[in-house]
């Protein structure tokens, strides 16, 4: 008798576990894109870019408009990533750089960048409201969002989730190649590590920083186009993703791109396992607990360098 019951229960536990692992991976992947966007900006300009949530939503709205006009998700994805890069560069060149030029001294220096990007976030979201309104829009996923079947049961992991994972992995591969194998990557790393010496070696540090903002913007645009099809599109749609991306980046130490991905995966797994096995209400508290535990053990994050210059 026991044997007859044991197998289905074991089967249920197994599919539950597999589902938890796979959803952890796919949500961790999205957090990772956002975390990467924040780390790229932090490394190049020592700013936590809260406006990233607004930039990503704005480019996703642009992608949404492209879909409305042409019906092609892939074209929209491309447009969103490119416009994300342009928007990031424009914000750095015409907004952040003048502010930094103005505010050089006094205790406000620490707070000004945070406040400026928060203000920019509000302005971008308001502009989205002016143009597209506040009603929830939705973007159709390009492939099926129905779950895969594992051992006869449908699990909460779809073809689309798989696609997201593949895209995020590809984006990371591109970033690794860019940073490790190209001259541009060398310039980016040099200006992040030591702006003065980079400047002396003939690197145009200001332009390289703007490039960092552009890459971050592209990463945010990709995050938006991959995140929204499972969700709704409205001006504040990416606020929570920003918070989770930020938490992931802080866990990873803010300095390291690898750390951002690791932090995002830790966060994805912790949240999904806590909500699957303990209580669905633990979604937000888990993020806080994981962050506090990591920072208690290592106040500079997992991969933050000890000797990193203070902001």
């Amino acid at each position: 008798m026991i044997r007859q019951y044991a197998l289905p229960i074991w089967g249920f536990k197994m599919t539950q576990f597999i589902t938890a692992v796979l959803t952890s991976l796919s949500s961790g992947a999205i957090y990772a894109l956002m975390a990467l966007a924040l780390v790229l900006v932090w490394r190049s300009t020592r700013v936590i870019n809260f406006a990233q949530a607004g930039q990503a939503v704005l480019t996703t709205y642009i992608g949404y408009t492209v879909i409305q006009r042409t019906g092609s998700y892939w074209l929209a994805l491309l447009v969103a990533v490119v416009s994300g890069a342009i928007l990031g560069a424009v914000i750095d060149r015409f907004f952040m750089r003048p502010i930094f030029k103005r505010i050089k001294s006094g205790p406000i220096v620490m707070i000004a960048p945070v406040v400026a990007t928060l203000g920019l976030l509000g302005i971008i979201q308001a502009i989205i409201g002016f143009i597209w309104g506040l009603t929830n829009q939705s973007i159709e996923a390009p492939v099926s969002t129905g779950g895969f079947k594992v051992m006869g049961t449908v699990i909460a992991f779809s073809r689309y989730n798989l696609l997201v994972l593949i895209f995020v992995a590809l984006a990371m591969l591109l970033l690794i190649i860019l940073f490790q194998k190209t001259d541009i990557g060398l310039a980016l790393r040099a200006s992040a590590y030591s702006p003065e010496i980079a400047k002396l070696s003939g690197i145009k540090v200001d332009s390289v920083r703007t490039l960092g903002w552009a890459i971050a913007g592209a990463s945010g645009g990709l995050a938006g186009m991959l995140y929204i099809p499972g969700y709704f599109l409205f001006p504040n749609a990416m606020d929570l993703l920003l918070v989770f991306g930020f938490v992931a980046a802080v866990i990873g130490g803010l300095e390291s791109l690898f750390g951002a991905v690791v932090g995002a995966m830790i966060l994805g797994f912790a949240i999904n396992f806590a909500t699957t096995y303990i209580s669905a209400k633990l979604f937000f508290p888990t993020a806080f607990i994981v962050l506090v535990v990591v920072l208690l053990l290592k106040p500079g994050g997992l991969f933050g360098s000890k000797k990193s210059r203070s902001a």
Partner: protein
Amino acid sequence: MIKTTPTKKRLLLYIFFGWILLILGDRVGDLELYQGSFVATYALAITSIILLTGYSGQLSLGHGALMAVGAYTGALSIFNAGLHPVIGLIISVFVAGIFGLILGLVVARLSGPYLAGTTLALAISLPTLANQFPILGGEEGIVFDVGVAPARFGDEFSQYKWFFWISTLAALIMVWLVANLLSGRYGRTFKAMRDNPVAAQLSGINVGQLKVMAFALSSGVAGLSGGLLVMLISGVSPSAFPLSLSFAVLTGAVVTGLYSLKGVILGGLVLVAIPEIADSLVSRIGGSEGFTTTLPGFLVSALLILAVVFTPNGPGHLLKRHHHKKKV
């Protein structure tokens, strides 16, 4: 002749200011009284940000969570334990302060973005905890009723006037206490720690302890402001403390000038006035629903950026600088 110390002068000034406010309270309508209560509440929240960020140099993006702690404590002690509203509000100050103390012990060794991230995560996670415990009332929350004014004030003493009295007096007393604290030794050590932690430590200041203390104090002030806020909206629920509240309070603090308590009432006024200005603008020029509901957010953000760019150290600082230039 009586010797006047700065502390005594400040006390007289606050009593005079409070007296003017109460006289004003008799002359205006219920709507203005209600808005005035919000001004006092926001001014308190801004005071707590200035104490923490402006003086001790720790950036918090999660003051909404600390306000929520005070609000829930107040609601529980008034509604469930049946205590007098004034005692409920005092308890909420202390409980929020103790919460801040614990939080400070955990986060005081973090700095800059690490601290910002932790407080931000707290701001989104703490209010949702209310759904975990049935006593906190879940999504619907619990009522927060301070009751009507005592009978001896007469029949014409409206509920809004009662709100106005409570919040104004609470804010005046609290800001007075904080101002006294910051004009003395603690204010100087806080500033020393903010401007140069290493030098402060070398001169014998216990930086870690001081940071924790700043968190506890700021949290107590925020707790009172949270209690007042839910008194004004008659109930406490997780949705009363969104992320945007934490950001709005920070905006108010930046607009007032983070490094001085003198303008906190201005910050409160700005936070209350902007939705009104947006409303009157909308009623004049009209527009779509997307335009009308996002206009206040747009104005707040624009003001925030303008404040950072043009008066990074507060409007008072700007005046001082002009004054200085004239002299030279």
